[in-house]
């Protein structure tokens, strides 16, 4: 575009020309700065999250049921000790588009949790086994209780956590992230999965305070969460590898489903909607062309 702008055809007035050139050189200077990718992120030490293969990425993406079930197991046996998923109800686990446990499995699973209910007829609060309609009870009663137990740290709720995390892709990559065929929406899951695998010994020149850990992907490289996963910690019964890498990807996929339980319906219906609209717009185009065919315009 700049070349087009710099083409200068009207040279009948030197006044006009000076005016144009001076303004244009300012703009050209501005644009050349903007085009310099060297301006992108600097000063941060955290690593750029690793790109993973996600079954739910892209226009045709669908969740992998087995992965969601494994991910739920990792959540239940590891994460749920500290992290709540307040927006997840047990019934969601048997809904279409998720891990799709059977209703019987969900009833049994819910019954293994205790929830507070009440007041009853005598005005007392009481505990009862959870029902599928209940939300998954949190590990701590409130934020203060969590902080008291976790030496000041507050493990965030995991309901929409993968949508609440991301990383800058930089210019011009971010422009392509919206385009069909190139679209990329997996910032949050790539970040969380990378972070779960990102623990290591700190570089020798970095001091990590007590109660904190070095993590290559965390902002500032310091994280309050102890390394949650270790090889073999969770037993899979479907033969999937019992490694940190597998656990991290499985539990992150599960978190994506928790954050976006209707993702499959959205993408399925979206394909129908867009296909219809393309055909409809095509018909409108030909109708328009017919109507205008006798008008010079």
């Amino acid at each position, binding site marked *: 575009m700049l070349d087009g702008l710099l083409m200068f055809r009207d040279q009948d007035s030197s006044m*006009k020309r000076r005016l144009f050139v001076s303004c244009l050189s300012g703009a050209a200077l501005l644009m050349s700065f903007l085009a310099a990718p060297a301006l992108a992120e600097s000063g941060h030490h955290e690593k750029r999250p690793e790109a993973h293969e996600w079954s739910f990425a892209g226009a045709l993406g669908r969740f992998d049921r087995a992965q969601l079930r494994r991910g739920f197991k990792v959540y239940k046996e590891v994460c749920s000790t500290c992290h709540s998923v307040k927006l997840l109800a047990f019934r969601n686990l048997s809904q279409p588009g998720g891990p799709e446990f059977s209703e019987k499995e969900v009833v049994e699973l819910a019954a293994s949790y205790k929830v507070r209910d009440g007041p009853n007829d005598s005005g007392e609060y009481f505990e009862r086994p959870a029902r599928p309609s209940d939300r998954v009870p949190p590990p701590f009663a409130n934020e203060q209780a969590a902080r008291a137990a976790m030496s000041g740290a507050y493990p965030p709720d995991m309901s929409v956590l993968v*949508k609440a995390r991301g990383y800058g892709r930089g210019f011009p990559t971010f422009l392509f992230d919206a385009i069909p065929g190139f679209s990329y929406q997996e910032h949050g899951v790539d970040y969380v999965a990378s972070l779960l695998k990102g623990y290591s010994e700190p570089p020798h020149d970095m001091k990590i305070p007590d109660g904190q850990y070095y993590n290559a992907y965390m902002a500032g490289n310091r994280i309050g969460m102890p390394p949650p996963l270790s090889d073999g910690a969770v037993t899979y019964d479907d033969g999937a590898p019992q490694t940190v890498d597998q656990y991290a990807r499985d539990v992150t996929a599960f978190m994506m489903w928790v954050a976006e339980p209707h993702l499959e319906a959205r993408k399925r219906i979206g394909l129908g909607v867009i296909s219809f609209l393309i055909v409809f717009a095509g018909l409108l185009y030909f109708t328009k062309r017919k109507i205008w065919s006798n008008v010079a315009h």
Partner: protein
Amino acid sequence: MDGHSQYTPKSGFARWLERRLPIVSFMYDSFVAYPTPKNLNYMWTFGAILSFMLVAQIVTGIVLAMHYTGETTLAFNSVESIMRDVNWGWALRYAHANGASMFFLAVYIHMARGMYYGSYKEPREVLWILGVVIFMVMIATGFLGYVLPWGQMSFWAATVITNLFSAFPVVGGPIREWLIGGYSVDNPTLNRFFALHYLLPFIIVAVVALHVWALHVTGQNNPTGVEVKDVKKETVPFTPFATMKDGFAIGVFLVIYAWMTFFVPNYLGHPDNYIEANPLVTPPHIVPEWYFLPFYAILRAIPNKLLGVIAMFLSILIMAALPWLDKSPVKSGSYRPLFRKFYWVFIAVSIALGYLGAQPAEGVYLWLARIASLYYFLHFVVILPLLTKYEKPEPVPESIDASVAAGSVTHA
């Protein structure tokens, strides 16, 4: 338009109604018989696209309001409940959130078209000013709506923007407290923002009605900028000609809108808005929605808070003065070689301001934002008046028909 209606009531009831309330003939004259210049290009379909988007936002918004709770401890979860438990709630919410972006995209193209073809010039000054009013109410509506999900960006955007008013001496502080209903953004703020977010779209509808009325008095501009001279030869009836063309354009626009809604629904959002509002934690970078970024860049470019606020408001208001800043008798940029170049520089600078608004206000970004902001205003107050004086326009076609016959600018 002037003169007698071209509508003849056919049935007995229609004749009865016509003598009492000529609403059918009014609709007929406005949307069926209304003469449209036959040389309009697709840039002229954005008025219809915007009307469609306004209705789409109101319809999705009303249904969302049935499920939303404007209270600080419940708002965030009520939006999530829409996403999870309300039938089609995820579709409504993503359509509404992305609808706002598509609405602004369309309005920017609509405005850019008006600027290129000089649609603000005599006799369309009032039409143009009403458009600026609509744009300002849209900005207010968009900002208020962004606060409602009560995420971190919602809360901090509300805090930053309402704080701007405190820049005005003496009255600033009280105005801010009056706006937010207290000393800090809290439940009274959220509740009134919800009420106002529901109100303003209907004000937009009212101003749009005036905008369309003014349009139908003056008639549409066209790519040549030459007024219609022979209605019979140079115009076509709105229906079916413009309705079909607009319908096709809306269809194409909807494909993009549906892609955004169904496949990249969070692309234009900020991840921090999925964290519930917390007055005790400030996000590292507070950024507004993309459609406010150029104005945000101008605000931050100026070191003095009050002057920054004034510059930001002026950057929008100055558009209302366009008919008096650019007095070149030639309307269309197609016949103004020098204007055309400055026009594209102006568009580039505006986009650059948008980019800079998303960057931290420091170092080279800040200086670039200062240069670009300065240029933005120079375009209006120096370049356009000087062009009026010194530019030698190319010859303008005698009439729309002459230009169509020459086949020159129809697809500019």
